[in-house]
């Protein structure tokens, strides 16, 4: 790429689905402005670059790198380190890079169990010889290697220093455009950037602040999965027994899911001041569960509570759907204390 004085933009995907890239492209015609302002220095989704190209850049060559995807294997981590070294501003872009997202749910199981599920017990796999991917394989032409598959999925900030975090699965296009405008303003007009370490492209409070549904005092008798109930269009979904993570989720998306009757999934992560989104959600829900009566026998009460709790399908996967890597729980034990 020719030296034309334009700031350099990179976007990379580690362990991710590609949705973040689509979301960037979803800023529509504004992408032309991006192209006008930036030179693309590395963006495997839309342009052909090789790692050796990046390696050849001087340190800090890339002005801003949007890094999406979690750190699942050694290659993801190497790329994170390389891009950290080559970038002035490294942004954890989207939920995977910010807090682990769906890939980090595998921290609720073990590497061994994950491999068994994927390579042996998968209905679409026929693997009679029980072959597993190996880090190193000898072939006639020499040694072939694959990246190491880690036990634990990490967020980007757990392997390198991160300047900004943009939450969302994926981040909402208007928020992306707003962030890019701030960066463009900083690069072209010398406007100030937010303080390093900030979560940008989102609000600070809980999503309920943006949600227009009517909220009342909450007492919940049982929970419903989406197919089990036709929600009242105006009332708070949680009050109707639909798990809505909005109470423990950062605002910024405009409450898109609740506005169409789907409980917030929590993809913007916890609001300011909350470290563990899942724990907070659990604590809040436990507080408003309204079954039985204090005068009841403890055994009976326990049974009733269990019945109500059993109406929540996959609590860990629900409450930690996006934030497992950042959770206080970290991961399930993995034998012999190996991480």
């Amino acid at each position, binding site marked *: 790429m020719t030296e034309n004085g334009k700031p350099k933009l990179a976007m990379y995907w580690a362990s991710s689905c590609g949705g973040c890239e689509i979301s960037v492209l979803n800023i529509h015609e504004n992408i032309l402005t991006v192209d006008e302002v930036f030179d693309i220095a590395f963006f495997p989704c839309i342009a052909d670059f090789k790692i050796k190209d990046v390696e050849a850049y001087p340190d800090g060559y890339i002005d801003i790198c949007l890094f999406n995807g979690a750190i699942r294997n050694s290659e993801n981590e190497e790329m994170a380190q390389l891009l950290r070294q080559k970038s002035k501003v490294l942004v954890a872009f989207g939920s995977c890079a910010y807090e682990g997202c769906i890939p980090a749910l595998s921290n609720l199981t073990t590497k061994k169990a994950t491999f068994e599920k994927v390579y042996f017990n998968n209905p679409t796999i026929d693997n009679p010889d029980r072959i597993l991917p190996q880090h190193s394989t000898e072939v006639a032409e020499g040694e072939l290697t694959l990246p*190491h598959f880690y036990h634990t999925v990490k967020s980007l900030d757990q392997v390198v220093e991160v300047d900004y975090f943009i939450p969302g699965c994926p981040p909402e296009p208007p928020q992306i455009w707003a962030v890019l405008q701030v960066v463009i303003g900083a690069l072209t007009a010398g406007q100030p950037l937010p303080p390093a370490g900030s979560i940008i492209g989102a609000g600070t409070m809980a999503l309920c602040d943006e949600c227009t549904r009517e*909220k009342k005092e*909450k*007492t919940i008798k049982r929970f419903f999965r989406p197919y089990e109930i036709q929600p009242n269009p105006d009332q708070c979904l949680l009050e109707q027994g639909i798990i809505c993570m909005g*109470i423990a989720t950062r605002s910024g998306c405009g409450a898109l899911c609740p506005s169409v009757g789907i409980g917030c999934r929590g993809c913007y992560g*916890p609001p*300011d*001041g909350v470290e563990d989104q899942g724990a907070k959600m659990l604590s809040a829900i436990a507080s408003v569960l309204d079954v039985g009566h204090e005068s009841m026998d403890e055994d009976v009460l326990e049974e009733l509570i269990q019945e109500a709790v059993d109406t929540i399908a996959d609590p860990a996967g629900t409450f930690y759907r996006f934030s497992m890597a950042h959770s206080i729980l970290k991961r399930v034990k993995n034998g012999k204390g190996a991480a």
Partner: protein
Amino acid sequence: MTDQKKSPAEQEKVGVYICHCGSNIAGTINVEEVAQWAEKNPNVVVARNYEFMCSSTGQELIENDIKEKGLTRIVVASCSPHMHEKTFREATERGGLNPFLFEMANIREHGSWATNDKEAATSKAKALVNGAVERVVHHAPLEKIPVDINPNTLIVGGGIAGITAALELAEGGHHVYLVEREGTIGGRMAQIDKTFPTLDCSACILTPKMVDVGQNDNITLLTYSEVESVEGYIGNFNITVRKKARCVTEELCTSCGICEEKCPQKVIDENYGAGISYRKAIYRSFPQAVPGYPVLDKENCTYFQTGKCKVCEQVCPTEAIDYEQEDKVITFDVGNIILATGYDLFDARQIPQYGYGRLANVFSSLEFERMVNASGPTAGHIVLRDGVTEPESIAIVHCVGSRDQNHNEYCSKVCCMYSLKFAHLVHEHLPDAEVYNFYIDMRTPGKGYEEFYHRLLNEGTHFIRGRVAEITDADRHPGEEGKLIVQAENTLLGIQQRTPVDMVILSAGIEARHDAEDVSKLFKMGCDHDGFFNERHPKLAPVSTMTDGVFIAGACQGPKDIPDTVAQGGAAASQVAKLISQGTVLMEPVRASIREEECSGCRICNTLCPYNAIEFDEEKFVSRVITALCQGCGTCVAACPSGVIDGAHFTYTQVMAELKGVLWDVQSDVLTKQEVA
């Protein structure tokens, strides 16, 4: 995060003090090692160990170090904060620091007393000290909240405990609202004939007190009334009382008693009369009732049931009968509350093998108490259920429902003594009767109690040590014919014994009131495992509860005899008098507060507060904590899903720092370990 904590670079200067507590702590924990280890923490400037930190020299250590070494935070590792948190907070304050810049690590109850393993105890002490150090650097200075004390007091329960407390306060010049569920005050003591061990007439010593209550201008007596709601906090409680309709206009009634006399409807008196005497449908439980106004029992009144009668209205000389009278709801404000709600008697029907309710001549202790009372149904004559036959032999069974794993495991404390009193009264009334006391252990701790037991030993009572297995009327030989046979193992002789008697008295134990738990919820305090109200400290705060401004007295706290009950009534009154003379109290600043500008208005917290201290602002769509009502329990803090409720002195940062500090040696940071297998 919301803590106004300085950046970690700005280190606090922490002083750590490890107390030996004589050998209580130092006997198990290597205090020197803990102190030396603690000093290695980069925030710790000085770590000492000292024999008694709570002594004045121990406290001076803290004060001097603050002044000389410029300490900014204090940690004392010693006993429970229940014991000495206040002591050390004050020492911290005298040294010139805000008292809340102090933290206590409990290495005695949670450490040296919990194990004999010196190594384990020392290691745990380190963890607790480290937790406290890591926490205290995040502490923020807090100011106590002053609250005015309303000088009026609510006393619930008009038994001897409530009467004593009411008179103590009223005679000291303070106004008291005395609320009693029944139509008269007097309580259990009014049912009793003689009191042990002095054998004074119970009524003779009680009724003057009752009269005093009735006549004292400082006492608003609300009988036949129940507390419906309690709102507020120490110094400022708002009370709602329902004064049930007694169908008698109090202002007109002269207590002449003619209505009671002429009322044609007799009702078994289950309550005061223990079910062995009658009262009328309009009645006073006993002639000396205070107040003297009768109560009309609508459920048994002929007029209310059939629409015809109205005899009482016709005979009343002052037209005081008012069939239309309705319940009155009264509200008033008080600064303090004393609960003296008394006890229920164990229902002997729960032990079917003792035959109570099935075998006619098995009596409950309360039945016997009423029978032997000169104002009771037999005018004090001891007779069998037929009402005429004097028994020739009587068995008194101790520990009915008490010291029994199937019922109440605790000792009811008064039954041995009242059983001895019964034996004495039988000897007095029926000198020729044989009396058998079946006991497990004879428990007579109290002034003059053991002497009373010895008196009974000389009066010819037969004492048989052994729990009664069964009381039956199934005779095995002619000698048992027509008798009740008490089957028990005489453990002193090692034989099974069948004792034929004419009459059995079951000495039932004391239980918490059946509705004690509801009452405890109404007043927002707790009950113990057995259902009695929980005191704040079993030894040092026996009449206080965990709720400031709410005190307890008498058997509602646990089984008690009359002297102890009276003492507690007085103690509770003096606690209240202390607060009244202080005029204001400083409330702990450990309260929750909501950062309104960050509240999303999700309303999760709205239904949670046990003190109703959270309100929702419908205009701003935010929730708010009413500081004065908040008791700092932390329920809302934990529940707030967006972390905008701060619990002062228990902030997220403080709690997490303490946890991490305690877990200093088990933190295997999963993310820094070798990843590749």
